[in-house]
């Protein structure tokens, strides 16, 4: 879309873009993949069709009102004979209905073609990613026939640029909906009904996504991100993710690991290479490699992490993580340890 057209059609968006900056990579009309591009094209085509229909209809009503207006508060007699007017109206209305039908048919054909394009994305040897919705975070695995080659992470999905990726969806509890607006439309994650969903990202970058189906208390804070990178970077990331957690060397980090293993953390989280193996919460083996915490709610910094660990119910009331009133030095040590989990 040209800037002029955007200013015309999305004045609010264009103005905001001037004053506030762009909303990040989270916009239906800022596509970064073939599917979102196709849908954007379709969106604008249909938009123009309905825009013209809108203008014509409103002009029609305005013209009708202007030509037939009579004083509002006087007795106006009822028109007895309308047969001549009706004859002309029949032609006008008939042709208007015909044009409507044709326009709707065009919409139908184009959306079927676009639908085929969007759903037609496929590949013989795709990257497969299993996304499982949880209240209120995303479990992400890259399944592999060899169990020890399976990458498990959370909320941050890495994909190679320009390659079709198949996302197998499922849910552990209620219905969620997987939606990266800049990349593709959404797909519901329904418990008991697995489905496959294809995406492809063409430009490297970090794209935001969010749960789109109401899923309970923290539906608002259930984001994820798609990190699209070149294939070598993606492979390197994957190799790194496959490693178990690094043994801490710094004494503070060693103490932090002790805190992790003797407090509530161990009840829910996994850190591969340690005794912590519970699958209730996100896998933390490579927590420090992720940019965000708490399903894209907080930046992954020491301060935010401390706030999150001590009182997660302030950030996301109702979420499953309990408050952890740790002693200050224990907390600092724990964070130091978690920050080593690259």
């Amino acid at each position, binding site marked *: 879309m040209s800037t002029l057209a955007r200013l015309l059609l999305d004045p*609010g*968006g264009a103005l*905001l873009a001037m004053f506030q900056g762009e909303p*990040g990579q*989270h*916009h*239906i009309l800022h596509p970064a993949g073939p599917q979102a591009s196709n*849908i954007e094209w*379709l*969106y604008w085509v*249909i938009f123009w069709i*309905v*825009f013209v229909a809108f203008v014509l*209809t*409103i002009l*029609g*009503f305005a013209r009708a009102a202007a030509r*037939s*207006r*009579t004083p*509002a*508060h006087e007795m*106006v007699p*009822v*028109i007895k004979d*309308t047969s001549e*007017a009706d004859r002309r*109206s029949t032609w*006008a209305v008939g042709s*208007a*209905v015909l044009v*409507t039908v044709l326009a*709707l*048919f065009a*919409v*139908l054909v184009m*959306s*079927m073609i676009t*639908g085929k394009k969007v759903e037609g994305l496929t590949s013989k040897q795709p990257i497969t990613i299993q996304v499982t919705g949880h*209240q209120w975070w995303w479990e992400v695995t890259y399944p592999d026939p060899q169990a020890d080659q399976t990458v498990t992470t959370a909320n941050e999905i890495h994909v190679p640029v320009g390659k079709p990726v198949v996302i197998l*969806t499922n849910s552990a509890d209620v*219905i969620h*909906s997987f939606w990266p*607006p800049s990349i*593709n*439309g*959404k*797909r*519901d994650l*329904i418990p008991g*009904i697995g489905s496959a969903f294809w995406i492809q990202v063409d430009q490297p970058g970090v794209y*935001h996504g969010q749960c*789109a189906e*109401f899923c309970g208390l923290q*539906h*608002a*804070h259930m984001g994820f991100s798609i990190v699209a990178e070149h294939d070598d970077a993606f492979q390197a990331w994957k190799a790194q993710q496959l490693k178990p957690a690094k043994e801490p060397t710094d004494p503070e980090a060693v103490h932090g690991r002790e805190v992790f293993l003797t407090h509530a953390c161990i009840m829910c989280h996994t850190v591969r290479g340690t005794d912590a193996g519970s699958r209730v919460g996100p896998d933390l083996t490579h927590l420090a490699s992720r940019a965000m915490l708490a399903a894209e*709610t907080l930046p992954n910094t020491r301060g935010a992490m401390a706030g999150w660990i001590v009182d997660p119910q302030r950030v996301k*009331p*109702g979420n499953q993580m309990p408050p952890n009133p740790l002693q200050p030095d224990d907390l600092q040590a724990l964070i130091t340890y978690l920050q080593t989990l690259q």
Partner: protein
Amino acid sequence: MAISEPIVIPQTGEQDRLSRTWAEPRGFWGWFTNVHHTAIGVRFMVTSFIFFLLGGVLAALMRLQLARPENNVLGPDAYNQIFTVHGSTMIFLFAVPMMFQGFGVYLVPLVCGTRNIAFPRLNAFSYYIYVVGGGLLWVGLFLKIGADAGWFAYVPLSGPQFTPGKRSDIWAQMITFTEVSALGVAVCIATTILRYRAPGMTLNRMPIILWEKLTIALMVIFAMPAVMVDSSMLLMDRTINTQFFNPSVGGDALLYQHLFWFFGHPEVYIIFLPGTAIISTLVPAFSRRHIFGYLAIVSAVVATGFLGFGVWVHHMFATGIPQISDSFFTAASLMIVVPTATQFYCWMATIWHGRLQLRLPMLWAFGFFFEFLIGGLSGVMLASVPVDWQVHDTFFIVAHFHYVLIGGALFPMFAGLYYWIPKITGRMMNDLLGKVHFWLFLIGFNMTFFTMHFLGLRGMPRRVYTYLPEMHWGTLNAIATAGVAFMTAAVIVFLVNFFQSRKTGELAGPNPWAAGTLEWGTSSPPPPYNFAEIPTVNGREAVWDAEPDQPVVVGVRDDVPEVLVTHSMDSEPQYREELPGHSIWPFLTAIAVSIAFIWSIFSPWGITYGAIPVVITLIGWLWPRGSSPTPRLAERPREATWSR
């Protein structure tokens, strides 16, 4: 039929006798025994308007919470309850009871030219049961048992595992209450339209509003059972451990969605068609001519009624259903545009070749044309599956359905209220205040909801209680919240106007708009017997087309509440039927049924033991009382006599 010499109308004392026969009971208990349709219709309107105001307060609270990122007006628990109760209230407790039950119960017998609605006790019962259902939901909200799984309460979120407590149960029983009410009224209205029309009002002369009410009543009859089945399944899953929606043992969460939207999409038309009914009534009245394209509009309405049942899957495009059904439901969803477009063109043609009087109700009708058009056209965008994949469950959808529902139902509702309040109260509304109301509402409405389109495109999902500042949704949300102030002011202006008009409004007289349908053929407000003489009908606009000396029907008894039953098609008189009189039993039955329904939330035995008082009250309701008039079976000539 036999044709004989002119008949003499007995004049003396006739209206006194009618007044005595049809007198509405007064006093505290009288209120609970009244079964006349004007009283019940007004109650439906007033009650649903109160629910509209309450739902509006919730909307304002939500907008306050969303006004800026990471706001702290409401927490997630309160927000979820509030948006759920807002949606459920506006759909189940306001839109349908106002647009279908309120206007329908009040107007249909008047437009038909008869003295009361069919099955008046069932009608009264339907009102009480509706009030209890609405009260249940709202008492629940105040007790913090507000339903919190959205107005369509998808399982498994609303199911036994993820919504502990009684929140979903209350929602499910509220559905049962309101649907029992809507179904009861649908039966009353459909029967009235088919059987109580004044002689001469053949199907071909039936005003469009009656066609629409009949279509809607039939849609209610086929659509509402789906949601009752669905919400009952949910309730049983939660209370007696059935497994309808448990995927581990063969249950299926998608079945819930199919059943819900099999009801839910016709529901949209159940709300929207009464709006077009009002518009189709106003447009000829204020264009000073018969409507253009009567047949086209009637066909469009009936076609909408049928097609409305074939589009439900377009609410489920994102669930990953096969593409073949995607295409089918896209085609059906686009097809349903055609009848509505046809209606628009017919209204336009009527105005074009008419003599437009832009009085207050017509101003609101133009508001409808503008706002509903936006909603309808964004609906065209949504019918396209790929676009829907993107904007489904975002604020774009929120914008769309508010344009459709506020544009398609609320604007016509205000048009209808300004049009018929003179009939109901006998006094006119103030023109200037009405215009202030209109412009404030129009500005506020577009501020709030047009911005939501942009929010949706910028990726804001619906039903979020807050959002992060980094998403850059703050400014648009602030504008949307500011619009609420205008709408609030507008509704306050309306209320002021209404109460002022009740006290000091200009007297309306029987027909202030010089309109053509039969309700304007009696005084304002109508007497309890509606019409002193049952009129005959000579055209589609009965008052305009009446012969100069208004031919009427005689021979309907005035010592018992009796109405004339005519043939469904040609409205030839068939027999005279005595209607049941005022009675406390509908109220008592409603109480008994309510006890059973509410009890069943807490114990599976509630419905079993609760059925006993229901049976007792029903026997009280139906047990014949007094001496019924001697039936004239075969002794008398069984024909009506026409004289011309």
